[in-house]
């Protein structure tokens, strides 16, 4: 029996067109826009000025608190502008515009293709370097990684869970990374284990990535404490709580964190970034991005410099198809629809999915027939139909009582609804309202 989580879940069509495409390095673009806020938490503080020359990998903005990270230049060139630029979320944020000339790297960064297997850092050093390198969760949430590595007093991390589920349809960046950078990944995992003082690491990979499972099993077999677990294909298996449940049978308490039950989850991309930061002294300035879509000419996986405009990626994958209706940053279940192609790739950009016109419109909303499908698919044990009507009618107390804040916004309810009801839209509104109330109550 393959491991999986047991409550709810759906099986969207996988459509992983780019699964067989090797990661291609995309050369630095002519200009990059590097937003100062690419992560959850406080934006970084600018430490350079307009007109200054920067090198690839140079620190350009410093973290401003515990939940905040450094930002480095992803190219070498001249800072032309510091401006408000729209990013994938649709909001305008302060970004540094750098005009590229040649690719001159900051000294001290190891660019050789050799794999450095020699681990010589203490846990504290690993956390410090992770913070310095500006590493965030690369699965999409972009939560600063050093925060997850800093275990609160009195807690103990028994196991590190590495998220290779990649349960979103279309996306293949983690899949390719596991296949092509397996050795580096394992070293990254060992570094994370040391930072957490965890004895075991469990890599969870969905069963539709057989080659990656076999490859990592082979590599992990030589290591102490690292094991690979194939998982039944089910969305949202890559959700932190669902993945922990699938691998350990434990549930993160409602309102709690994984460390409350002694586990920490990191994405495979993050583990690779940690390897590069520690063993190669290379900050997080590039990442693997899947560019895919049914009518796209060459669905691809690119290694992209942070700040590259999305349009460059689409051009490199064969250009925008004529029937494009929607362009999504991230996966089709949880990603954000883009309104322009000028938005830059940020640390949390796992993919660009292009949907044809015919699939990009919302469905006609009909009445709720109380078929119970939304309740059945909710992985958090909530009642989406009820939360939607409570949010529509603005009953914040009832919403809180019915645990609206436990919603992980996976979208399974909206996906399954036979009446095409926008369940998650309203649940998000309800969450925002209840969140506001909780914050004022605490103050």
């Amino acid at each position, binding site marked *: 029996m393959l491991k999986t989580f047991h*409550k709810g879940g*759906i099986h*969207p*069509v996988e459509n992983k067109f780019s699964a067989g495409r090797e990661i291609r390095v995309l050369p630095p673009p002519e200009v990059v826009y590097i937003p100062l806020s690419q992560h959850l938490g406080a934006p970084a503080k600018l430490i350079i000025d307009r007109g200054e020359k920067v090198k690839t990998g140079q620190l350009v903005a410093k973290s401003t608190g515990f939940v905040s990270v450094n930002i480095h230049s992803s190219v070498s060139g001249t800072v032309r502008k510091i401006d408000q630029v729209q990013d994938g979320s649709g909001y305008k944020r302060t970004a540094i515009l750098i005009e590229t000339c040649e690719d001159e790297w900051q000294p001290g960064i190891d660019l050789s293709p050799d794999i450095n297997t020699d681990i010589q850092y203490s846990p504290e050093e690993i956390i410090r370097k992770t913070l310095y390198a500006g590493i965030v969760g690369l699965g999409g949430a972009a939560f600063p990684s050093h925060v997850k590595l800093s275990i609160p007093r009195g807690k103990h991390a028994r196991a590190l869970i590495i998220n290779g589920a990649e349960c979103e349809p279309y996306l293949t960046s983690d899949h390719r990374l596991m296949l092509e950078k397996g050795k580096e990944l394992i070293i990254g995992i060992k570094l994370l284990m040391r930072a957490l003082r965890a004895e075991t690491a469990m890599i969870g990979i969905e069963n539709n990535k057989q080659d990656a499972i076999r490859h990592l099993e082979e590599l992990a077999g030589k290591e102490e404490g690292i094991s690979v677990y194939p998982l039944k294909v089910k969305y949202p298996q890559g959700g932190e*709580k669902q993945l922990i449940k699938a691998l350990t049978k434990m*549930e*993160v*308490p*409602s*309102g*709690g964190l994984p460390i409350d039950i002694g586990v920490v989850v990191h994405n495979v991309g993050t583990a690779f970034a940690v390897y590069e930061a520690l063993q190669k002294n290379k900050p997080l300035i590039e990442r693997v991005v899947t560019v895919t879509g049914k009518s796209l000419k060459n669905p691809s996986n690119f290694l992209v410099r942070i700040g590259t405009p999305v349009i460059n990626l689409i051009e490199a994958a064969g250009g925008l198809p004529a029937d*494009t*209706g*929607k*362009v*999504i940053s991230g996966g*089709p*279940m*949880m*990603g*954000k*629809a*883009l*309104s322009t*192609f000028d938005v830059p790739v940020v640390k949390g950009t796992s993919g660009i*999915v292009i*949907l044809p016109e015919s*699939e*990009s419109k919302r*469905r006609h909303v*009909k*009445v*709720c*027939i*109380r*078929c*119970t*499908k939304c*309740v059945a698919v*909710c*992985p*958090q*044990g909530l*009642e989406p*139909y*009820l939360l939607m009507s409570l949010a529509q009618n603005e009953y914040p107390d009832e919403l*809180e*009582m*019915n*645990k609206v804040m*436990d919603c992980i*916004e996976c979208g399974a309810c909206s*996906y399954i*609804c*036979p*009446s*095409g009801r926008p369940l*998650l*839209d309203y649940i*998000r509104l309800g969450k925002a309202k209840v969140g506001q109330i909780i914050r004022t109550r605490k103050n």
Partner: protein
Amino acid sequence: MDKLLTVAPSPHIYGEESIRKLMLGVIIALLPALFCSVYFFGWGAVIISVVAVTTCIITEYLIQKFLLKGELSITDGSAIITGLLLAFNLPGNLPVGIVIIGSVVSIGIGKMTFGGLGRNPFNPALIGRVFLLVSFPVQMTSWPVPQGFMTSYTDAVTGATPLEIVKEGLRNGEQVSELMDRVPGYLQLFYGHSGGSLGETAAIALLLGLAYMLIKKIITWHIPVSIIMTISLFTGILWLINPQQNADPLFHILTGGVLLGAIFMATDYVTSPMTRKGMWIYGIGIGIITVLIRIWGAYPEGISYAILIMNAFVPLINRYIKPRLFGKEGRYGKD
């Protein structure tokens, strides 16, 4: 870019389900029982089914068009299901006029008064049936003996249903073992050769429909299984206590529309609970009330009333029975 991109919150892809597909699935699941009823009751079954379905569709259309003035939804297929289910609850020789009245009541009072699909608290087909049962008790309880296309629609030979035979007999002080000789055997009940309403006769056809709906994930097993289990247990206990005064569980399951009710009427989306636990409570409630009516009530069968009574409890069940929250023993809300 000469055209604008669509921007909307996630999710950006959707499943294949739609109301029409689900309803079509239920209609397909009803087909075996429909064929059986035509096979056993001939033209009567055809006429009643066609009249009921047509009247239901027309009633819904007229009310939506001229009274509610809202979006027309008759293409979703739910009126067809109500019509078919109502027909399945009627005797095979019921006059057309009464069928029309029942259909108008089902859709008009049972469904559209509350605002249409998704808003009605009671199963519309059962509202129609119960309305007819209290308004036309004689016509509604004269059951034609199944003779296939030989069954005359207007002038059929009528007989009592197996449940009526047993109930009458027990009231007259007879023993179950004697009465069992006068009712059809289990195999006959299973294949449908017995008196009764159109849809309740052939157990095998109804079970085929259940299997189809389970495979297609239109319904879950919880409601049918909980009802059938409860009735078996309850009547089983009574039967063990006194086999001469109480019929055995299998007899109860195969007669009087228990399967029709458990599979098609109680599982109506709109009028059944939203959670698995709620479904169990609802099913157990239906089972207990059915047996109470059958054994101690005035009617020989009771599942229609049992379902309607439990329909009334559904909002209460939904309010208090919640699914198990992921990571329930949490801090959230406590601090």
